[in-house]
């Protein structure tokens, strides 16, 4: 992105913030509990997963499940909001001039704020689990959290830019996104820990390659690091700090590539938005 474009974004920071406020406000507008839902939503979801585990005797620890689910909630909400962030506001695009990138960007920031609040709820719940259920919770790696979230932000923003601009031209994108998200939910260690995959895959002849392919999904690496921030040293077998596979680090780099690609594609398509809305 040229310097001038970044300067323009900084100059329009109030607009970005106002659009963030708008998406936060309208999400719970008209509901009696209002903004409290931001906290209630993750709580309810965690309750559902707790019931699920206790009734089905699912062999994944609750703490693993909750961290995964909160992580995924952000990715899923962001992408499904972002896909219509340009095509959903034809009036703004056609009748007012401002850098269009602000539309998906503000949507991602709004979701990031929601994410931060649900992380607070998550931390409290995990702390209670540790106190009363002797769950394997260890906050000594919590310092990793800002870094993980920064990379996650880049990845999600990259995806948001790609799908929001493409959806202006092909409305099929919003349907495809739903299906792909569903598939990724199972292809990413959300409701199971990475160690499960490692164990199962080690039985195969070319297990190492398979695991590398699996780990090339940036979300797999990110959710694992996100877990590490809350669950600490017990996460990786052998007590290592981080997994040894190179694919794990390559996929983190892929997040940044995704952001770069998103900015490029969005910039190329932006001039033609008004023609197609």
């Amino acid at each position, binding site marked *: 992105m040229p310097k001038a474009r970044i300067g323009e974004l900084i100059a*329009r920071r*109030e*607009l970005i*913030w*106002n*659009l963030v*406020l*708008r998406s936060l*406000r*309208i999400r719970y*507008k*008209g509901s009696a509990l209002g903004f409290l839902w931001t906290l209630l939503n993750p709580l309810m979801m965690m309750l559902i997963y707790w019931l699920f585990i206790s009734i089905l005797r699912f062999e994944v620890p609750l703490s693993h499940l909750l961290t995964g689910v909160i992580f995924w909630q952000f990715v899923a909400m962001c992408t499904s909001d972002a896909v219509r962030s340009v095509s959903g*506001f034809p*009036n*703004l*695009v*056609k*009748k*007012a*001039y*401002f850098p269009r990138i602000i539309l998906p960007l503000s949507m991602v920031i709004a979701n990031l704020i929601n994410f931060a609040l649900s992380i607070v709820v998550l931390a409290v719940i995990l702390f209670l689990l540790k106190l009363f259920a002797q769950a394997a919770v260890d906050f000594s790696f919590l310092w990793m959290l800002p870094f993980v979230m920064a990379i996650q932000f880049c990845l999600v923003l990259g995806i948001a830019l790609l799908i929001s601009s493409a959806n202006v031209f092909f409305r099929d994108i919003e349907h495809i996104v739903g299906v792909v998200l569903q598939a990724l939910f199972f292809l990413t260690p959300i409701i199971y820990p990475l160690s499960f995959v490692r164990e199962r895959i080690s039985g195969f002849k070319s297990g190492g390659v398979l695991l590398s392919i699996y780990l090339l999904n940036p979300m797999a690496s990110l959710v694992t690091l996100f877990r590490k921030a809350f669950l600490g040293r017990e996460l990786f077998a052998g007590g290592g700090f981080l997994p040894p596979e190179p694919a794990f680090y390559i996929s983190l780099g892929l997040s940044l590539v995704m952001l770069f690609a998103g900015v490029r594609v969005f910039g190329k398509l932006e*001039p*033609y938005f*008004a*023609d197609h809305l």
Partner: protein
Amino acid sequence: MKAVDVSNVSKRYFLRKEVMRSLKSTVLGLLTGKRIREDLWALKDVSFSLEPGETVGVIGANGAGKSTLLGIIAGTITPTSGSVHVEGRMSTLLELGAGFHPDLTGRENVFLNGSILGLSKKYIEERFSDIVHFAGLSEFIDVPVKHYSSGMYVRLGFAVAVEVDPDVLLVDEVLAVGDEEFRKKCMNKMASFQKAGKTILVVSHDLEAVKKICHKVILLGEGSIVDLGDPAKVVEEYVRLGLEQQDNVVKREWGTKEAVISGVTFCNEAGEETSRFTSGQSIVIRIAYKCRRRIDDPIFGFGITDYQGRLCYGSNTIIENVPISHIEGEGEVRLVIDSSPILRGKYYLSFSLHSRDHRTNYHRLDNVHSIWITSDTKREGFIRLVSAWREGR
């Protein structure tokens, strides 16, 4: 230094024909590289410029390219070719309340809309009570705007929009909204912008307002500049062309096509082909036909419709007692309207070729052709009656 410089701007749209689109045709289109689409040039090679402090109006019929032109200058639409240069800060009043969210309150929307227009939060806070007062919405400012009437909505949008302090201002159709009192407020605001030396480009259907406030007027017709210059002169030309009317007719071509009307030509008394006539002149219409088989007892008919779609007159060969025994191959019939009593305006003509019992329509051209009629008399209305005045009883 020009305030706004538009040079050789063209804009092409691709009209995709939705009716023709199916998955199969899309896939085939992708494979063969052929796309079912139609080009539409919304603007063709438009150039003009605005001096600083000038107010210029843009008029033209619907679809003439006015809004596209404004969008291109505003930067929301990218031109296919050509370039636009704007000197200084630009603000747009393209749509009042663009970006208003129905679920947010008036207050929240003022701040949101203000930041879309590039106003700072601090500035809006300072001006907030004036904005609300100008819109006349003090009691309703904390109500979600979905409960507003359309007048209230527009008033609030305008009140925020006029807070901008640009060097160049683009205005689209906003003068024509709201009640009389509000329109007066708008006109005053425009006048104060002018006094402050702003360069203003305004698109409007309100010809009187355009004549009053503009220094120069541009007349757009089908994407090109038809006329540019003195407001009174250009507006007069526009009215003379009858372009200000918004046509309300349905054009249609249909029938079994066993026989078709293959061509229609309009001629004046001198035999010249034209579509412009003077009231009182005769109009000669030559209708060519082509048959795929012999047709017995055919009837030719015609109708004249005004721009509102009202039928003014209609007749056919049977009503006029000119029976035609049969037609075959190619041929021509002639329709003469003697010293046409139509006074002025744009009229649509429909032609038909059908069977005697009206059951079979071989070919019908509904409102496909149009003619212009002008008059140099001062008589009012659209039809000339033979009338005479006498003094006394």
